[in-house]
Every structure is written in C-alpha cells, then in structure tokens.
C-alpha cells in the first residue's frame, strides 16, 4: 500500500520557481507584480489561441472533405464531384501578404520599443524630465495602418474574385475561399482593435507596465494572425 502523500511528497513546500504552485504574491496578494501579470496574460493568450486554431482546423477539414467527396448522381448512376479550382488574384494577395508581414515587423519593433521605455520608466516620474512617446517613432500606429491596409487589400481581392465570377454562393470551392479569408479578416480586425486599445493606453499615459503588457499581448496575437494568413494562403494555393 503506497504511503500517504505528505510523506512521499518529499519537501512539503517546493521552492518558488516563479510559476503557479510557487509563491504568486507580487505587490500584495491581490495585485500581482508586473512580471506576474505579463506571464499570466501571455499564458492566457496562448490558451486563447487554441480555439482559433480549432476554428480553422474545422474549416480546413471541411474544405478537404468537400473537395474529395462526390455526390451520387442519379443520372449517370455514379458519384461525381463538382469541384472547380478557384483562380485566385495572386498578385493582389501577394501584395497583401507582404503588407501583413511588414506589419508584423513593425509590430515587433513597437514591442521592443515599449520594452525599452519601461526601462526608462522611472525617469518619467521625476518632475522636469519628460519622456513622451511623440519623440519615439510611432511603430504601433504604423502597424495599425498596415493592418487596415491589409483588410482593404482583402476587400479588393474579394472584388477581384467576384469579377472572375467566383461569388460566395457560386460554387463549392469559392465559398470556402470567402469563409477562410473572411474569418481571418474578422480575427485580424480584432487585432487592429487591440492595437487601438494599446495606443489609447500609450496616449492616456497609463502606467508603463500595463501599457507594455497591452502592446506585448497584441504583438503576439498579431504575429499569430500573420502565420495564420500564410497558412490559409498556402492551403488555398497548393490545394485548389
């Protein structure tokens, strides 16, 4: 019979490794310190990305199933598949991809920048010395603008598709193109809104830490959106 856990557990209180199960009390038990909050929000973000992944996994599997299963045709007494590859506006989508990747770069720069600011933070409290964002380059705004540009680009891409006769309801393949790109656009829009929040945090002189967290989280989310888009683009291109 195994012996009771408190004897088999070894040291009854493990050393503080800075994760849950260690000592989490930062600045008082209820307002954990900056390090705690950053880690917590990052964990939350990573966890939160899982359902987004599943959403697109579901769309993808639907895409593949639909592409490879036929329907019983009572006339020819056989299974036929009505799949027609979509002719994508490659140039336009290529440009959009470029824009989105650039925006990821500027996002990263913005993140690094805020990181540095948070080092200089103490100076800001000394009267007289004033470190305001205007002097530092507005990477955050650049990212937001690039993001909006990408969305506009996608809108053009949809119009281009329509011009080639691929409408939402015009066929098995085009409906998936719209669903996948549309769902991605919606999530990216969420990213843009997050950026605007981060910007507001910057302008409304919120305490540097919470501002940095806002930027940091939006940044990782933004990078994820970039990766997601590349995946969707690849899927639509290679598995027409």
């Amino acid at each position: 019979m195994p012996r009771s856990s408190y004897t088999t557990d070894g040291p009854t209180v493990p050393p503080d490794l800075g994760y849950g199960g260690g000592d989490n009390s930062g600045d008082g038990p209820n307002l954990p310190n900056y390090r705690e909050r950053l880690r917590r929000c990052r964990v939350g973000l990573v966890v939160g990305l899982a359902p987004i992944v599943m959403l697109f996994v579901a769309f993808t599997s639907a895409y593949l199933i639909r592409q490879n299963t036929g329907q019983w045709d009572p006339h020819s007494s056989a299974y036929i598949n009505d799949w027609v590859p979509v002719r994508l506006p490659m140039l336009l989508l290529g440009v959009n991809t470029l824009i989105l990747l650039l925006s990821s770069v500027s996002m990263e720069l913005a993140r690094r920048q805020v990181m540095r600011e948070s080092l200089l933070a103490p100076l800001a409290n000394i009267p007289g010395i004033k470190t305001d964002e205007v002097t530092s380059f507005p990477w955050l705004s650049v990212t937001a603008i690039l993001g909006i540009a990408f969305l506009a680009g996608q809108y053009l891409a949809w119009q281009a598709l329509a011009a080639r006769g691929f409408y939402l309801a015009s066929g098995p393949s085009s409906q998936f193109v719209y669903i996948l790109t549309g769902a991605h656009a919606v999530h990216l829009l969420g990213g843009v809104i997050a950026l605007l929040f981060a910007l507001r945090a910057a302008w409304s002189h919120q305490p540097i830490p919470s501002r940095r967290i806002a930027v940091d989280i939006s940044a990782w989310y933004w990078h994820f959106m970039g990766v997601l888009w590349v995946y969707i683009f690849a899927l639509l291109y290679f598995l027409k």
Partner: protein
Amino acid sequence: MGLALLLALLLLAGLSIYFFPAHNWWLPAAASSTAHATDAQFFRSYLIMGVIFVAAQVALGLVAWHFSRRRATPASNSHGHNGLELLWTVLTAVLFLGLQATGHPIWAAERFDLPEGTATDSNHADAIQVEATGVQFAWYFRYPGPGAKFGHTDPKQIDASQGGESALGLDATDPAAKDDVVTGEMYLPVDRDVDLNLRAQDVIHSFFVPNMRFKQDAVPGLRIRARLHPTVIGTYEIACAELCGLGHYKMHAKLHVVSQQEFDQWLAGKEADKQ
C-alpha cells in the same frame, strides 16, 4: 439510511434481473439472418453488462450500508492499491473489447465489401436488387425488373402529386427505366440475399425494420448499400428512424416477405400493369 440505500439498490438490481428473462417487452420476433445473430449478441451483451451492473449496484449498496454502521472503528488511511487498479483495468478492458470482437462479424456481414449486386452479376447472382427512397413523408421502392438495371431518375421530372414513378422522377427516355417497377409497399422473397440501395430525395430519413434488426439512414446525395436476408414469411413494419420533419412520426410502410413464386407473380403483375 444506509439500510434504505442498500434495499433500494437491491430492489433496482432485482427488478433488472427479473425483467431480463421475463421478456414482458422484448425484441420483436426475429425475421432475418442477421436478426438471429444480433439477438445472440444482445444476450451476450446484456449478460456481461448486466453482471457488471448488478455487481456495481449491489457493491455500492453493501458498502453504503455496512460502513455507515461502524461508528467506533476509525476509517483506514489506505491511499489505494496499484495491483487492484491494474486488475480491474485489465478486466474491464478484456470484457469490453471481447464484447466488441464478438459483435463485429454481424456488422461485417451486413455492410462490408458489398459487390455491385446486379442479378446478372456472377459473383452475386443470387441477390435481388431493391432501391428504397425516402421522401417527406413516405417510402418508395423500386425494382430494376428483368433488365436488372435501374433507370435514371431526374429531379426535374419529379412530380409527387402523381405518385409512383413520377414521384421518383423516373426518366422515361432512359431504356433501362422502361421495366423499372415503383411501389409504395416493399415485397421481398424469403431466404434470398437482398441488395438494398438507399436514397433520399429531400432530407435524411432512416430505413428501420425492427423485426430484421436493421436500420440505415437514407441520405440525400448518397446512395447507401447494405445486405439483407429475410428468413421468415410475414408482413413487417418499416419505420422512419431519423427526424425528417413534421410527418416523421407517420412515415412508415409495409414490408411483405413472401415465397419466391408469390414474389415473381407479384412482380410480373406489376410489370404487366406498366405495359
């Protein structure tokens, strides 16, 4: 309270045991080859799961009763026993997987590797072909006739009001359709393989013959095949077992299992009417 629990659980176990052989309500009379195999498997399953069920309930009752009476003796501090864990893990695994194994052949016989069964088809010469089509809220049955080939159907030519062939949209221009027979009641010869083709015209229906222990969804856009083998002459009920809308509850048809020559006469009669 403990005693009451024990009694209640004993009662539960007792009643279940009683109803098992009592057969007050039981499977309807078996009328197909798979039905007999299925019932045997039902018996095995009920026996194994029944033993587990009774054992668990009675054990629960006894424990609840016995150990709620001991006031004096302190409880043991046991944290578990790996040997036991292993034992019942293996035990249940063996039981459940064994059950699966014994049941599998029935399924395989009914559904696996069905050759395209046309009466002229050598390796399947004996099978008679029937197509059952589900429509809100009726079943239509089609026999390929002497030509042993189903004619085309065409959604554009469907006219439910006419019933029969036009309800299926049978394409008159197709030579193979000439000798197709469409009926509202299903006739099958006894002791012969049936190559069943299931189709649906609007939504999903499910072809359910309790006496044959047979069920299969009829899905629009698919033609689903299965093998049946009626063994007892008689008339049986075909129900629809997949929610298909308002009339789901009254979507049913009759299945007549008859002798071979009765069947031939019936089919010939239908052919005659058609000409």
